[in-house]
């Protein structure tokens, strides 16, 4: 009896330690983002302070008050870039990937498997291998520092993800319904659009959300293939931290703004995350 109680207590302590380690950094930076510089520099650090929205106000208006005057920033441009790049990359991947996923799931054809695995192997190749030549090519053909160029390269992450998850969903749906609909005299295209896609819709939505998160979190593509005009928050935040004269609370607010969209989406789509993270190998 005593031993069982001790065991329970140890278990609870372990749970608290785990929660503390994994959640504390997010909570602390979140808290910092509402602090003035004076509160942040106070020692010992204290969780009791009067919250201020000035850090966010400064970031969103682009006018940062510093000790020596006002500093203009364009962090909102980085936020906008993140949205444009991630959303476009996912839409393109869905248009390219869903038909291909259907083909791989429904037909056995030469090249099909080879292609599916080539795409998968891209996921595991070092990105700089491709980025090194692309940086030189892009400058020659005018794709350097453009959304189009970046969205195309983003397919390296989003396409394999969508292809393999959606393929799994198509494989799980019995083709019998499609056969029956086909025997009624409907065209192949109509069957694909009216039967197959609606049935796989939850999988397609989940794959799209995850691909959006991974595209949003990408860092190295835009670091190498773009200037600040097209760079997303991940790269923008680094420039922000190393820039001088920016107050710590503003940096914290910038980090919070860069993670809020993905964290919200992740909580919303958490049911599908296990399957997505393992590229369809494990079901949650």
């Amino acid at each position, binding site marked *: 009896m005593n031993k069982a109680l001790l065991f329970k207590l140890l278990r609870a302590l372990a749970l608290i330690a785990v929660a503390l380690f994994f959640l504390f950094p997010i909570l602390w930076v979140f808290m910092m983002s509402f602090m003035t510089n004076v509160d942040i520099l*106070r*020692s010992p650090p204290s969780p009791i302070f009067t919250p201020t929205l000035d850090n966010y106000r400064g970031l969103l208006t682009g006018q940062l008050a510093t000790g020596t005057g006002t500093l203009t920033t364009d962090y909102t441009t980085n936020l906008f870039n993140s949205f444009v790049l991630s959303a476009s990359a996912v839409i393109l991947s869905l248009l390219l990937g869903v038909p291909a996923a259907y083909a791989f799931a429904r037909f056995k054809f030469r090249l099909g498997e080879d292609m599916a695995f080539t795409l998968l192997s891209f996921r595991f190749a070092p990105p*700089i291998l491709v980025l090194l*030549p692309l940086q030189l090519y892009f400058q020659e053909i005018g794709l350097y520092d453009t959304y189009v160029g970046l969205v195309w390269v983003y397919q390296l992450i989003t396409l394999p993800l969508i292809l393999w998850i959606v393929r799994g969903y198509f494989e799980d749906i019995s083709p019998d319904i499609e056969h029956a609909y086909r025997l009624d005299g409907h065209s192949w295209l109509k069957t694909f659009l009216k039967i197959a896609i609606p049935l796989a819709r939850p999988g397609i939505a989940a794959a799209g959300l995850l691909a959006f998160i991974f595209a949003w*979190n990408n860092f190295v593509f835009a670091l190498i293939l773009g200037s600040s005009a097209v760079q997303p928050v991940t790269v923008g935040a*680094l420039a922000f931290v190393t820039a001088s004269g920016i107050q710590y609370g503003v940096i914290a607010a910038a980090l919070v703004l860069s993670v809020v969209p993905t*964290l919200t989406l992740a909580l919303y789509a*958490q049911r599908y995350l296990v399957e997505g993270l393992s590229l369809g190998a494990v079901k949650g």
Partner: protein
Amino acid sequence: MSGTLIVNAARGVASTQRSRARQRWLPYLLSLPALLVCIGILIPFFTAVWYSLERYNLSFPDQRAFIWFGNYLNLFTDPAFWNTVRISLAYTGLTVGVQLLFGLAIALLLQRRHWINDLMSVLLILPLMVAPAIASLMWKLMTNPNFGVLSYLVGRLGFPDFGWSSNPNSALFTVVLVDTWVYTPFITILLLAGLRALPRQPFEAAELDGVPASFVFFRITLPMLMPYILTASLFRMLDSIQQFDIIYSMTQGGPGDTLTVFQVQAYLEAFSFSNIGRSAALVMILWAITYALSTVFIKQWLKLRANARGQG
């Protein structure tokens, strides 16, 4: 009457033949756009192979020449390269090892269905969904010597000038810590799904027979969980050996050359020293390593995938 039937039947045959011919082309047609993107990515890959065989420095364009394996030979005789190899292996070994131990322990802790455990497994997703580059910056704020809460706490424990990522002695520890914070949940989530997918009979039988818990863990749980453990560690190894975001965003490979892992070193060679040939050779070596690892990984991954889809 019978004539129209025959004509109809003939029409039917013709149309199925036509549709069969179309069926044969359909999959190619459907996957063609994705294939074109594939080829578009393979072109720069082969260009990189070519660069790696060239003396190619953007600062000295007129000295550009094909030198066979010159870049590779230079690398193999350069202590800086072996430094890169050593750090990359240390980083990979430490991150995967630590995360596997923690990840497995946490998965076992959360195994039983209970609302607290379920809530925890959802909250654990959060660090995993923070961009690794941003995670580094968060930890950089927390380890700032002037106001960082961790610097303060470690100072109170008797290490007033711990230094974190700015000290060569603790830089590796710091980035491994950030990597662990981000990616341990990945292993936990995968192993948790694995644990919950295990068949119950062996555990029930063991309980009936009064088999000790340690025996159950080492002889039943661990072997049955092995495919998941293997997949998760190979997955993490593949990402870890090419880690860039966390390290670059934390220290740009510094202090000095303390954290110049493969991709960081390749980045610096190309974009700080304009040495394209040498950088390409460096990533080609990394690619060979990841390619070998990924073939093992994909085999393991396919087994799990077939299993999850009820074909195994």
